[in-house]
């Protein structure tokens, strides 16, 4: 098992830069997820690590050695593709054996590795089937199996679950997580789905337009997003953003005025806020509760009933949309006016440039 390091990596196509100066360290056995919207460069970054794309500037290191000029096949990586990329005319067994046979691995060892992978992924009944006779989930498992038998230094996953239906995706997520624990392998996983990132990663790398926005453990990113983008990207439903102004700031205590004159206390980094500053207040939906005497007025547009929780989509007094996560089997009716209170929990404050100025330990009054 090796670690992966990126040092000032950039990629351009002609004069168009798609990756800007990315540096990252992935440790031994870590499960790191690259996440971001389409076009953010996460797949490109992954393919540069794999050796399928050339690096314009910077260095890629695997196991401490620079591999920029090393061919993909010699880097000791295995990749699981979004479209599985299984060889359609070969059986599952042949698909898995192909790579090993190309380097002359002796037959008994090939068989042994295939048997082990098949056992881990429950592929035994399918070993002699062709890919076209298998479902999407099964094919993805074969693709993973093909990666396992290579016993690579690093596993690379390029949006492997995007083509599967929702239920299957949930199932495969847990399988991959279990696989990681079993093998203890270094895995780099690319996805656009923030749920996958949150649930599977040891650390998440959030990317936007070829730049790393933030790196950290899932809960760190969730509770302490460094900027508006990360705050809005992670967490479902999205964080509510209310435009407002700082009314007072003393050391780490500040007060913000939002939506129709509502004033809320927030804890900020010392000196980061001055009265009069335009700011954005970030409140997660679970912070909103319906309270008859709550300070925030809004009109309910849509109510989504999820069983144990309800999502109330409302428009606030100043026209800002907001989502409240409620635990009320009888939520307010659609079209009705409701009052919201802000419950205990982290209040995020972002300055005019979108950077977080919330105090790192939390913004509770």
């Amino acid at each position: 098992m090796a670690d992966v390091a990126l040092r000032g990596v950039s990629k351009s196509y002609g004069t168009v830069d798609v990756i800007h100066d990315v540096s990252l360290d992935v440790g031994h056995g870590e499960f790191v997820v690259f996440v971001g919207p389409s076009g953010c460069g996460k797949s490109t970054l992954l393919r540069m690590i794999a050796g399928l794309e050339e690096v314009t500037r910077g260095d890629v290191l695997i196991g401490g050695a620079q591999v920029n000029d090393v061919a993909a096949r010699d880097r000791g990586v295995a990749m699981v593709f979004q479209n599985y990329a299984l060889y359609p005319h070969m059986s599952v067994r042949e698909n898995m054996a192909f790579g090993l046979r190309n380097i002359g691995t002796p037959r008994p060892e090939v068989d042994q590795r295939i048997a082990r992978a098949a056992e881990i992924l429950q592929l035994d009944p399918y070993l002699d089937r062709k890919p076209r006779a298998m479902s999407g989930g099964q094919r993805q498992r074969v693709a993973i199996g093909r990666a396992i038998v290579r016993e690579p230094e690093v596993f690379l996953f390029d949006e492997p679950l995007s083509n599967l239906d929702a239920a299957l995706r949930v199932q495969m997520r847990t399988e991959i997580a279990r696989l990681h624990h079993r093998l203890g392998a270094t895995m780099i996983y690319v996805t656009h789905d923030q749920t996958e990132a949150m649930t599977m990663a040891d650390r998440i790398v959030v990317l936007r337009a070829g730049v790393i926005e933030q790196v950290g453990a899932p809960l760190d990113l969730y509770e302490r997003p460094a900027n508006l983008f990360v705050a809005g990207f992670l967490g479902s439903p999205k964080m509510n953003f209310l435009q407002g102004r700082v009314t007072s700031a003393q050391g780490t205590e500040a007060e913000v005025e939002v939506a129709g004159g509502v004033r809320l206390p927030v804890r900020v980094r010392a000196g980061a806020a001055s009265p009069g500053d335009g700011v954005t207040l970030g409140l997660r939906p679970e912070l909103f509760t319906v309270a008859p005497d709550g300070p925030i007025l809004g009109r309910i547009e849509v109510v989504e009933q999820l069983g144990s929780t309800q999502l109330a989509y409302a428009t606030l007094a100043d026209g800002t949309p907001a989502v409240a996560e409620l635990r009320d089997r009888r939520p307010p009716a659609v079209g009705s006016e409701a009052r919201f209170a802000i419950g205990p929990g982290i209040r995020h404050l972002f300055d005019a440039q979108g950077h977080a100025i919330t105090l790192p330990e939390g913004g509770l009054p």
Partner: protein
Amino acid sequence: MTAAPQVRTLPLAEPRTRAPRSPARRREGLTAFLFLAPFLAVYLLFLIYPFFKGIWISLHDWDLMDDSIREWWGFLNYSDLWADPIFWQATRNTLYFVALTVPSMTVLSLLLALAVSGGGRVRAVCRTIFLMSSVFSVTVVTLIWTMVLSTDRGLIAPVFQALGFEPINFLGSPTWAMPSLTVTTLWWGVGLPMALFLAALGAIPRELYEAAELDHASRWTVFWRITLPSIRHTLVLVLILQIVGQFQIFGQAQLMTNGGPSGMTRTLVLYIYDTAFRDWLVGYAAAIALALFAMMFLFSMLQLWLGRRGEES
């Protein structure tokens, strides 16, 4: 570990720090060469080189058999060609043939494609029949049709006689010889353009027809406003292929009429063949061949240009 949010730098076109020709790239180039070598070898040797050699030969007095007669003539062959009445006759004949055959072939193949597109056993059998005639070789086709058109032993002559008419000597008549070649060529060649049209017709999305149905469109309207526009590209393709193909007519002219009667069916390729292999004037024949090539090239470019013009309008 939380990285501070990175400030995006303005994208500058910085020079690459590594040369683009990495060892991997060089290896790929070599592999590519190995893959291409067989093709390139045969291609250059048997197509490109002969083409230029043909030009070279056309600038000489070149005898078929006698090695000693290889005199440089410059453009003499071409000036002779310009003044040669037989060349012009052959050109007129070829153009006449193309004018007869290309439009009728295109229309016929389209009609047949329309007729056999769709399901059903009967249509499938008809499809096979119309395609099958294309698979015969030119010699089989000419044999069949020479027989069919024969005045004393043919298929058509008895029909004439039964109706009380004198049977026409198709292949021997100055008026009917070329049209007879056209009919033969139609029977022989409909298969490919018909298949092209079938493919194009099959590619028209069903929804277009269904929407038209709901819009109470008549069959005729559907054909003019939906079917035809959708297959425009194929139409142009078929026309180009036909023009290029029919310019090259040889077998039918040689075997059925041998250029007769009195040179009425002497086509350009037949003239080339006779000049080279009967009269042994290879240089002159090469010049005719290049003139033919130029004509074909011009026509297909014209066709392409017109086709593209039509698209833009």
